[in-house]
């Protein structure tokens, strides 16, 4: 039995018979499908500011969400009390959505077979005593301040969590998971004369605390954050208008997340509200572009053994050599669209219904040398770090905001420029990709994605690429 199911069986004494009873209650007014989602979520967060550990928080939330699906209709209710009568009550409320005779109850629940354990954590970060985490934030503070005397403020945030989850569906499948997650982030202010600038860096994943000692240390993130802030002190006005844009590897993959990822979530395409609706099999990018969503990379922030509906995650090709191949599916959309599941049914927690979401979204490496890509640009922008983005999935317009970018002049990277937003059209932008580097990199594990008020951890990645034409929203000439 997986760790998630074991936790709820032992700690809350929820038996297979209980689950069958709750599902029967959920189907008491009919419906095509019903499921239960149990979650226990424990968190720790620590903040350091002005070289003081100003706050530390621990918390626990837990509950059970019940969903009943009837055609395209979904009823949802949840309880933050795992007492049997409360779960049954939630099941009855969710059942109101269905119209029809009570369905034969589900009998003989079977544990789903899960092929991989992507985060075999021996000691969960939440089990480590607080003093060791205090040491991480203190080290980051020291390293950032030591980087340059112009660093005047440092804020460090450490956060970890564990989630035990268990899903039981009226299709007879039960599956669970144990999901650790940790991150460390560093925010710096640099000051020179009257100019103040900021830098941010951070990372983590579904890892043990040792990750921050052996792989990505507090010093690594602190130095990167401080470096960014210092670079920005010299930044000139960003240019305005259409020009060639070179994206550096890693975090700039947020382009894919905004420009194509959201537009390929199956719910929007089933309802034909996405600019990508009906474009399967058509060219939406240059032949150099292959884009995937892969929830199965070990230890990554966006990875999951199973999604929040109990389906195994997978490596899904979205765009292959420029041609649109597939959508990101959850159970509801895959049933209505008669498409295969991709393991992208995710939710923020038990208070929320699942929907199609991304995991780790990235473009596969090409053959170009990153230096050649920069050399090929006479005048343009080289953007290496981003602060966030947004998309209107209906008209396809998306933005993402550069937090570290440079001018390219005569094939050389010259001056840093101030923060600017880049804007484009999702189904068009990748058609202008003329070079793809051989240096695919994933981000460091700090990204979160919001949709309909639900936030989930995700990853992005990209090699260095050249986009021949994109609008840069600066103030300069």
């Amino acid at each position: 039995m997986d760790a998630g199911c074991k936790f709820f069986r032992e700690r809350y004494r929820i038996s297979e018979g209980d689950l069958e009873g709750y599902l029967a209650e959920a189907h008491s007014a009919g419906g095509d499908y019903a499921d239960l989602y149990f979650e226990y979520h424990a968190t720790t967060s620590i903040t350091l500011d002005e070289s003081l550990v100003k706050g530390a928080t621990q918390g626990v939330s837990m509950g059970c969400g019940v969903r009943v699906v009837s055609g395209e209709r979904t009823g949802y209710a949840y309880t933050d009390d795992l007492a049997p009568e409360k779960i049954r009550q939630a099941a009855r409320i969710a059942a109101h959505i269905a119209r029809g005779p009570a369905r034969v109850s589900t009998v003989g629940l079977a544990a789903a077979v899960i092929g991989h354990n992507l985060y075999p954590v021996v000691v969960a970060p939440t089990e480590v005593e607080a003093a060791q985490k205090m040491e991480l934030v203190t080290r980051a503070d020291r390293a950032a301040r030591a980087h340059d005397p112009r660093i005047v403020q440092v804020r460090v945030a450490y956060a970890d969590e564990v989630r035990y989850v268990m899903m039981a569906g009226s299709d007879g499948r039960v599956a669970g998971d144990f999901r650790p997650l940790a991150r460390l982030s560093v925010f710096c202010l640099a000051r020179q004369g009257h100019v103040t600038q900021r830098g941010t860096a951070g990372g983590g994943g579904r890892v043990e605390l040792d990750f921050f000692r052996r792989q990505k240390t507090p010093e690594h993130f602190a130095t990167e954050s401080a470096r960014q802030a210092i670079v920005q002190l010299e930044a000139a006005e960003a240019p305005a208008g259409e020009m060639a844009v070179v994206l550096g590897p890693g975090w700039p993959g947020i382009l894919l997340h905004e420009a194509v990822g959201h537009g390929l979530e199956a719910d929007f395409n089933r309802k034909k509200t996405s600019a990508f609706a009906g474009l399967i099999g058509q060219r939406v990018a240059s032949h150099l572009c292959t884009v995937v969503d892969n929830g199965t990379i070990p230890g990554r922030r966006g990875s999951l053994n199973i999604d929040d509906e109990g389906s195994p995650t997978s490596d899904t090709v979205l765009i292959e050599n420029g041609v649109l191949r597939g959508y990101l599916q959850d159970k509801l959309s895959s049933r209505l669209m008669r498409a295969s599941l991709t393991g992208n049914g995710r939710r923020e927690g038990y208070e929320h219904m699942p929907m199609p979401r991304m995991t780790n979204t990235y473009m596969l490496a090409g053959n170009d040398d990153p230096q050649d890509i920069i050399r090929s640009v006479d005048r343009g922008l080289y953007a290496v770090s981003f602060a966030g983005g947004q998309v209107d999935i209906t008209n396809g317009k998306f933005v993402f905001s550069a937090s570290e970018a440079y001018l390219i002049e005569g094939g050389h990277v010259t001056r840093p420029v101030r923060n600017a937003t880049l804007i484009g059209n999702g189904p068009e932008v990748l058609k202008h990709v003329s070079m793809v580097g051989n240096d695919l990199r994933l981000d460091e594990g700090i990204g979160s994605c919001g949709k309909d008020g639900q936030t989930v951890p995700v990853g992005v990645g990209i090699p260095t690429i050249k986009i021949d034409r994109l609008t840069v929203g600066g103030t300069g000439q």
Partner: protein
Amino acid sequence: MDDLKDLATQVIERATRAGASGAECLVREGREFSVTVRLGEIETLKEAASKGLWLRVLAGQRAASCYTSDFSPDGIGRVIDQAVALVQFTSQDPAHGLPEPELLGQIPGDLLLYCDDVEAFSVDERIDWARRAERAALDADPRLQNSEGGTFDAASGRLVLANSLGFVGEYPQSYCSLSAVPIAIASGCAMQRDYWYSISRSLACLEKPEQVGRVAAQRALRRLNARKVETCRVPVAFDPMTARSLLDNLFEAVNGDAVYRGASFLANRLGEQVAAPGVTVIDDGTIPGGFGTSPFDDEGVPTRRTPVIEQGVLRSFLLNCYAGRKLKMPTTGNAARGLAGNPGIGHGNFYLAPGSAPPERIIGSIRRGFYVTELIGSGVNLVTGDYSRGAVGQWIEGGEFAYPVEEVTIAGNLLDMMRGIAEVGNDLEFRGAVACPTLLIAEMTVAGR
């Protein structure tokens, strides 16, 4: 109904007995409801009740906090034990602490935060309103052929705050909202989605479904056939919804947490002219029925009316006790608590006072410019004030709307933008806690082709 108060005061007592030198406990419970009707059929219906308890303990000059949704004796015991253990690991900070006792209190009288007509509105009626709002949008024009639906949301609940100085306060809240999101489709151009909504603490004050649907329809239709414009510098007008987002940015810049760290472009500008003389910005937590209203803030300090900018001059930051101590200024009663950590800072009803110009006159005065109706992206750097966001709207030629615009950015610096406010509309209207009339900014960069 004293169970939550009893729980909060017991938790305070037990934390103090376990060694805390001070403690503060906030308890929330509430019910939520949401229904979305899409293309005439119910798409999702959600209903639930939830609760949460937050405890902050102090040990001398150290602070730590814990929260739980588990109100069982075990769950409550664990929160207290965890908080008292955790506080030993944090640093000594002389600015930590509960409010000075004389600051505690609450404003009297009924602030109209709860209205029972929301809970009395039946599920069938809620579904009907969502359906009518969507139908009104789709019936407005044959080009409105698809939809993300009509949605009716309702919530109600209670908040209790207690601390070890003897403060105990409680207030109920209610909320309802109605929205419609139609999609306009026409041949030869991209489809366009827009929305409209109404929000109130009382059903009686909620706009009718037909009104909400009609406005949503107009907003989606006017975006069809949008185009990019040439990169240029022109006057930029913000409609009340996008102008409101500028006030969100301003709030972050006067937030005492950013100010004491020097992380705001307004940090050292108290008493300076930071906006055009016609600009006055008020934070007021006392307006009856407002979404930013409460009898006390999340530290137990009464809310109040604070002029933030008067005739363009920066008069006050917004503070809780911690930021106040750091800046050697009194709290402004703006403590606000998230899920974790020490109290943060939030706004009350935060608005820019209306001017005298009707919005039509502002638009009519622009020879060539851009009227912004939607902004996307997060391109605002509050440390420098640098501003660059994606924008949608209408191009203005000769004082009239010429054609819709999309896939452009508008950019500038917030300080220059505030000083460059040339006109303030007379159309202030609250749709939530932050409100702003139509604004005209003399010049910004519009980046397009």
